């Protein structure tokens, strides 16, 4: 079942409120880019009905826990056993175990073979329902419904969009360090539903999602020439994006998905170009003997941030989306690379090399407010969650013999808290986060 079909098969409906919402919702976690509040204690009861209900509750709990903003209360502490999720719970029982929020729900097979999943989010302190929705889907999409419910809970409580109903495209690595086999792979944000998109015969690097979700753009050494390709992830059909005499690399979609900005190398020199995906017409944006690479559009599409060593060392520059004289924005110690504009527009993430270590950091688009979020022997290649609050990147540490060790995906939030590994079956690099999947 393709994700496109999935989109059409998940139907949401509001559940009738059992108790009217108060004028101002009290169940609110105030989050800022600066620091996280203490995690909100939340109880998530197994959904009643179909056996899938317990698994759905588990996926919701894992999602919310991963955000770093919630503390999941152990089910063993529950006093009330939820039997009918359509009746108000005994709020006193939940206050007694210090739950601020309670999630209950049901999962049932309908006569026509669909799965109906419904949930209610309760504000325990106020004794009111904060959210309630019902979904119909094919039974095999139960995980996706769980992620959608987790996003709904996240949004209700934080006021910001969630990131759980998303996917990640990345490079799965295997084999010895001097002959790595690299395959494109795609998985859900939590590591489930992993699927390979290429067979490993050609070296592939730096996949990036289109805002339209069905397409990725990446670099492949297919046919012995390193060039940028575009692929439909549902059909795995790929197409060369322009045929140039030199290497094309470092591709990234424009926010509307209609253009790809990338580096084109000619006679050893790399400059930045933008290509219209449909017409394949190309325009040159930089013309400089320095290395210009790793371009990324601002969310409005009016600016491009990129990496250049035109000043003598690798730094981050911003220019208009039509080119023109760029302004340097990175002025700290060390070398700055791989700038990526947040989908929210407020920050630019980057990789920074200073001394013997690599860091992932963020700065404002004018270069102010620089903050390092993670540091190790090698932390590289940040990618933003669609809500602009979480970042994924890859980390490689030397092994015990001093050789390049395992390379894995990690995530961290914009405060620098909540650093944690992202599960993959094997070595993984070059993650790219999808937008929220439309429902």
């Amino acid at each position, binding site marked *: 079942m393709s994700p496109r079909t999935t989109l059409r098969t998940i139907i949401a409906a509001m559940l009738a409120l059992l108790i009217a919402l108060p004028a101002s919702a009290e169940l609110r976690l105030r989050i800022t880019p600066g620091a996280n509040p203490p995690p909100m204690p939340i109880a998530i009861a197994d959904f009643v009905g179909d056996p899938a209900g317990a698994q759905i509750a588990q996926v919701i709990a894992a999602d919310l826990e991963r955000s770093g903003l919630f503390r999941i209360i152990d089910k063993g502490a529950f006093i009330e056993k939820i039997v009918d999720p359509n009746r108000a719970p005994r709020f006193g029982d939940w206050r007694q175990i210090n739950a601020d929020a309670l999630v209950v729900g049901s999962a049932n097979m309908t006569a026509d073979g669909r799965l109906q999943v419904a949930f209610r989010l309760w504000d325990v302190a106020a004794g009111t329902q904060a959210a309630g929705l019902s979904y119909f889907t094919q039974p095999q999409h139960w995980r996706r419904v769980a992620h959608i419910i987790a996003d709904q809970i996240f949004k209700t409580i934080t006021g910001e969009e969630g990131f759980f109903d998303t996917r990640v495209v990345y490079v799965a690595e295997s084999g010895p360090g001097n002959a790595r086999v690299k395959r494109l792979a795609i998985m859900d944000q939590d590591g489930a539903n992993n699927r390979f998109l290429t067979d490993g015969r050609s070296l592939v690097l730096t996949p990036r999602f289109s805002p339209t979700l069905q397409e990725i753009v990446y670099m492949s050494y297919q046919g012995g020439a*390193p060039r940028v390709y575009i692929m439909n992830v549902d059909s795995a059909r790929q197409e060369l994006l322009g045929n140039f005499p*030199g290497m094309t*690399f470092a591709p990234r979609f424009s926010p509307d998905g209609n253009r790809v900005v990338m580096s084109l*190398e000619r006679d050893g020199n790399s400059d930045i170009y933008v290509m219209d995906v449909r017409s394949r017409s190309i325009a040159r944006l930089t013309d400089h003997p320095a290395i210009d690479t790793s371009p990324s559009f601002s969310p409005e599409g009016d600016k491009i941030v990129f990496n250049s060593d035109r000043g003598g060392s690798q730094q981050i520059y911003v220019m208009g989306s039509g080119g023109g004289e760029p302004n340097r924005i990175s002025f700290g110690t060390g070398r700055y690379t791989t700038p990526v504009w947040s989908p929210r527009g407020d920050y630019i993430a980057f990789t920074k090399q200073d001394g013997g270590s690599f860091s992932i950091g963020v700065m404002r688009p004018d270069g102010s407010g620089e903050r390092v979020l993670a540091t190790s022997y090698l932390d590289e*290649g940040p990618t933003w969650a669609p809500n602009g609050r979480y970042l994924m990147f890859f980390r490689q540490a030397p092994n015990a013999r001093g050789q390049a060790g395992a390379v894995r995906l990690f995530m961290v939030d914009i405060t620098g808290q909540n650093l944690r590994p992202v599960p993959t079956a094997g070595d993984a690099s070059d993650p790219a986060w999808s937008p929220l999947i439309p429902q």
Partner: protein
Amino acid sequence: MRLKMLGALGVILLAAACSNTDRPDTSATGRAAPGSIQEFQQVVGDRVFFDLDSSQLRPDGRDTLTKQAAWLKQYTNYAITVEGHADERGTREYNLALGARRAQTVASFLAAQGVPATRMKTISYGKERPEVVGSDEGAWSRNRRGVTTLQ
């Protein structure tokens, strides 16, 4: 590892030599035959090394490339691909660009020495194909390289 790789290469070339007398091979005594790829790799030297984040040729590199050019002008039956590589202490995309710059530096030097540009291609592998797997300067300095490969 490197010896092993050369050994494997030798076997392939030995097989190829049966059908192609234009491509001399390692002789029975184990010495690279004149004009063979082994001679180019082992006697002339097929690679030059670069300093950190640099694509400037060092004096030892210029010497090697001068010898390469003389050899390549003598044995004109090979197509040439110059590979540019970087160490692991840089980001992937920047290192692809740096590898391209290094490959071009090598190809330009060879062209200036009279090797026809039409015989040469360049390709960058960035940090994707280290020669030595390791996380110290000893490994990095071997990996910041331009390699002249013959086909």
